[in-house]
C-alpha cells in the first residue's frame, strides 16, 4: 500500500441526515476513528433547501423546517467533535474500501477504511430519462433544481409554470412558486393517483386552487430558446396518450417531479450489489451490503418520504457499523425477504437472524404498487403466516412498514419470507 493512504476505522460518505445520524450513532457506540465526507459546503444534505415545515413530527414531535431539523444533528455532531469534512467529494470507493476524495483545501485524499457507510442520498430523474418529445429550450427544470434556485440562490426560474409529476418536491414547489407570485397552471400526473403525500396535495395544490390532472402527461415541449408551452394529453389504462385529448398550455417553465433515483455510482464502484426494485443496495437487517463492512442507509438505500425514518434507519446502520468494527457479531442464519403480490422494494432484502440469542425486532419497509383500501399486509414463510394486519389505506406515495418481533423472527430463521398485500386476513 502507498504510504500516503490515510487509515480510518469508519468512513461515512455524505453528511445529510443519513450520514449524520449514522456517524453520531457510531461515535456513541464507541468508534473514535471516524471521518464524514460531504461534497457541499454545508452539512445537512437536501434538507438545506427544504425551507418548508413538516419535518420531525415523528422524531421530535415538533414541526420543524428542513434546516431546523438538520441543525439538531449538526449540533449534536459538533458536540461529539466529529471530524466532518465539507467541500469534499468522494470520487471512488474500491471493494477493499480505499476511498478517494478531493477537496479544494486538501486536494486528493485516499482513505484506507475498515468500514464504510454509504449515505449519498438520491438525485432527481431528468427530462431526458423520460424521453419527452419536442424541442429542448431553457425553462425545463427538475423540481429540486428549481427549489435550489428559489430557496438557496433567491431567483425565480419563471412565471407561468406547469408541473409534471406529483411527487412531493413537485407539490412543494407548486406552492412555493405560487407564493412567489408565479402562475401555476396545473400539476400533471401520469398515474391515476399521486405519488406524493396526501397532506402535500391538500396543503400545496388544493389550498392554492392548482388543478391536479391525474392520468395525464406532457406529450410535447415547444419553444426554441425559452419554453413557450407544453402539450398535455390524457392517457389510457396502458398509460399511452389518447389521441384527440391534447391541450396546449402556454407557459415559460416546466418543472419535473418524476421520481428520485438513489445515487449509487460509488456503491457500484465498490462492488455493491443493487436491487432492481429500489435501485439501492441489497442489505441485511444490519444495513450491511454484500461487501463486508460496507453499509448503506437513507435515500441512497431506498427513497424515503419522511426524514424521521431516514434518521432512525441510519442510526441503526451506524450502530451496526460500530458492532462490525468492535467485533461483536453473533452467529446467524440468513433469511431472504421477497416482494409478494402488491408489494415493491422491501428493505431489508435479507435478514440475518442470530442463532443463540433473542433477535431484535426488525422493521420491513416497502411500497405498495398501487392504492389499496382496507387490505392486509401479510408476511409469510413457505410454511406459515407470520402476521396479517389490516390497514385502512396503502398508497405508493407513502412507504409502508411492518414489524417482525423476536418470536416471528425465530420462526422465520433461515426461511424465505414473503411480504404481500392481500384482500382478506390470512391465517
Amino acid at each position: 500500500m502507498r504510504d500516503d493512504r490515510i487509515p480510518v476505522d469508519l468512513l461515512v460518505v455524505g453528511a445529510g441526515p443519513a450520514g449524520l445520524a449514522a456517524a453520531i450513532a457510531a461515535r456513541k457506540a464507541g468508534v473514535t476513528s471516524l471521518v464524514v465526507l460531504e461534497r457541499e459546503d454545508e452539512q445537512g444534505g437536501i434538507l438545506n433547501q427544504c425551507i418548508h415545515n413538516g419535518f420531525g413530527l415523528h422524531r421530535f414531535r415538533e414541526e420543524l423546517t428542513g434546516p431546523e431539523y438538520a441543525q439538531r444533528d449538526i449540533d449534536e455532531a459538533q458536540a461529539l467533535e466529529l471530524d466532518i469534512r465539507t467541500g469534499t467529494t468522494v470520487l471512488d470507493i474500491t471493494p477493499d474500501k480505499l476511498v478517494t476524495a478531493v477537496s479544494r483545501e486538501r486536494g486528493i485524499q485516499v482513505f484506507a477504511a475498515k468500514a464504510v457507510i454509504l449515505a449519498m442520498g438520491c438525485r432527481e430523474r431528468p427530462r431526458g430519462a423520460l424521453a419527452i418529445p419536442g424541442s429542448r429550450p431553457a425553462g425545463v427544470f427538475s423540481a429540486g433544481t428549481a427549489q435550489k434556485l428559489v430557496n438557496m440562490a433567491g431567483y425565480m426560474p419563471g412565471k407561468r409554470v406547469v408541473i409534471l409529476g406529483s411527487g412531493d418536491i413537485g407539490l412543494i414547489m407548486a406552492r412555493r412558486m405560487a407564493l412567489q407570485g408565479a402562475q401555476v397552471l396545473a400539476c400533471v400526473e401520469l398515474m391515476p393517483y399521486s405519488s406524493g403525500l396526501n397532506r402535500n396535495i391538500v396543503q400545496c395544490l388544493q389550498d392554492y386552487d392548482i388543478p391536479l390532472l391525474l392520468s395525464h402527461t406532457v406529450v410535447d415541449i415547444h419553444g426554441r430558446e425559452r419554453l413557450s408551452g407544453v402539450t398535455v394529453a390524457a392517457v389510457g389504462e396502458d398509460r399511452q396518450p389518447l389521441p384527440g385529448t391534447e391541450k396546449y398550455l402556454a407557459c415559460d417553465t416546466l418543472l419535473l417531479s418524476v421520481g428520485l433515483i438513489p445515487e449509487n455510482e460509488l456503491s457500484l464502484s465498490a462492488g455493491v450489489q443493487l436491487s432492481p426494485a429500489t435501485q439501492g443496495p441489497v442489505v441485511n437487517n444490519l444495513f450491511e451490503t454484500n461487501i463486508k463492512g460496507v453499509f448503506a442507509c437513507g435515500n441512497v438505500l431506498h427513497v424515503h418520504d419522511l426524514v424521521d425514518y431516514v434518521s432512525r434507519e441510519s442510526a441503526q446502520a451506524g450502530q451496526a457499523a460500530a458492532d462490525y468494527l468492535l467485533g461483536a457479531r453473533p452467529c446467524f442464519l440468513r433469511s431472504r425477504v421477497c416482494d409478494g403480490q402488491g408489494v415493491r422494494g422491501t428493505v431489508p432484502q435479507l435478514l440475518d437472524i442470530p442463532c443463540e440469542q433473542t433477535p431484535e425486532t426488525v422493521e420491513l419497509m416497502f411500497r405498495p404498487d398501487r392504492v389499496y383500501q382496507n387490505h392486509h399486509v401479510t408476511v409469510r414463510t413457505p410454511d406459515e403466516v407470520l402476521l396479517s394486519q389490516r390497514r385502512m389505506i396503502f398508497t405508493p406515495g407513502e412507504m409502508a412498514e411492518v414489524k417482525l418481533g423476536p418470536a416471528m423472527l425465530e420462526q422465520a430463521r433461515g426461511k424465505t419470507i414473503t411480504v404481500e398485500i392481500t384482500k382478506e386476513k390470512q391465517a
Partner: protein
Amino acid sequence: MYDIVIIGAGVTGCAVAYRLGQYAGRVAVVDQAHDVSAGASKANSGIVHAGYDAKAGTQKARLNVKGALIMEEYCRPLGVPYVRSGAMVLGFHEEDRATLEALYHNGLANGVKGCRLIGREEVLSMEPRLNPQVLLALDVPASALVSPYELTLALADSAAENGVQFLLGSRVTQLAYQQGAWQLTTPGGVLTARAVINCAGGDAGRLHNQISTRQVHIIARRGQYYLLDHNRPALFTRTIFQAPTKMGKGVLVTPTTHGNLLLGPTAEDIDDGADTITTRDGLKNVLEKARLTFPGVSLRQVITTFSGNRAHEAGGDFIIGAVEGAPEGAFEAIGIESPGLSAAPAIGDELGDLAALSLNLPKKTDYIAPTPLPKAFSAMDEDERRAAYQKDPDYGRIVCRCEQVTEAEVRRAIRRPVGATSLDGVKFRTRAGMGRCQSGFCSTRVMEILAEELGCGLPGITKSGGKSWVLSGGIGKADQDA
C-alpha cells in the same frame, strides 16, 4: 474589409478557418448561433466513416476517404478525442449478402483498407451483445469515432489564436457582390470581404442561390437519437450499422468517444431546417430498429434524446469549391451531410488553400501551433490528479458530479479563445451537465461561475444565448423583462 469571411461555424467552417489560420490575412467566421458548433456539427453520430459507403467517383467518396485517413493525425495536436473503434454492418437475411458484398466492392474501389465479410460466429465473438439472429457482417476496422463538437471547438480555438475573428449571434440574411467586394448583410451591419466561403449548412443553399445563376436545392433531413449512460465495461466497442434493406436504412448503435451509447438516427425530410425537435414516432422508430441490433437495450439507461438535421442537396453529392455561376471570390461547401464530419479535415484543407491562393495570401511566419486540450480530470489517474491540483487548487472542487468535472475545467472553458458564454457552452466544452442527472445538480454552480467570469449577474446567464434565459428574476428584486 476582411480578406475572407466564412459563413458558418460548424465543423466545415471551423476546419476552413483552422487552415486559414496558417495564412496571413484578415479572416472572420460569422455564425447566427451564439456559439460555434450549434448546427449539425453538435448533433450527429460522431463516426469517422471509413468510406466504403459513398458511391465511388463522387466528391463524397473522395473527401470521406481522404478525411478519414488524416483524421487521427488531425486530432492529435488539438487533443481531440479520437478512437479507432472499428465498425460492422450487419446482415440478418440471405438477401443482405449481396448488399454487403456490394458495399465491400465499393469500399475497395474507394481505396478503403481491411474490410472483410465475416460469419455469424465471428461477429458474435467480436460483439457478444448483438442479436444472435445475425447472419453475417461486413467488418470495417478502419472506422473510428471522434467527438464532433470538441473537434469543432478546438479548431475554432486554434483559428482564433491565430487571429481569426469569430462573430457569433449574427445571421447573414443577404449575400451580394457589389463594387468589387462581397457584402454580407447581418442585423448588426454589413460586413465586406474580398472573398466569402459559404459553409452555412442547412442555410447554405439559400445563400448560394442569392449569388449564383445555378440553383441548388437543400432538403433538411432530420435524425433523432437516444443517448444512453456510460457502462463499464462498454456494451459495444464498435459502431454497428444495419445493412440497408427495402424497408429502409436501419439505425446504428455506437459508442461515443466518452463511452456513452448512441442509438439512431432516423431520416425524415422536414420543412424547417432550424427545427431540431424529437417526436414520439421518431423515437419509437429508433428504439424498434435498434432492438434488432441490440435486443437488450434498456430505456432505464437513457439520459437524453436529441436530433440534428442533415443538409441534403438534391443532387446527392457534396458541392465543394468556387461557386459556379457567381462572381469571383465566392467559395462554398454545400450539401455537407454525412460523411461531412469525416470529410471535414479534407474539406477544410482544400477549401482554405483554394481561397487563400485565390487572394495570394502568404503563409504566416508567426503561426501558433494548437495547444492540445488538457486531459479531463475524470480521465486522469491519481498522480495526474495530484499534479493538476498542485498547479491549480480549483481542480479540488467538483462541479459536475456525474462526469466529475472540476471548477478549474469550467473556468478554463469560459477563458478559452472561443470561450463558453452559456450553460450549453460550458456543457459542450467540459461535459458538465452531460451526465445522467442532466445538469440538475451542477447548473446552479455553473451559472455562478459563468456570472463571475463574465462579470454579469445570475439573471444574465442563458442556456444557449439569445432569449434562452434561465431565471425570470430575483425574489424581492426587479423582474427580468422576458
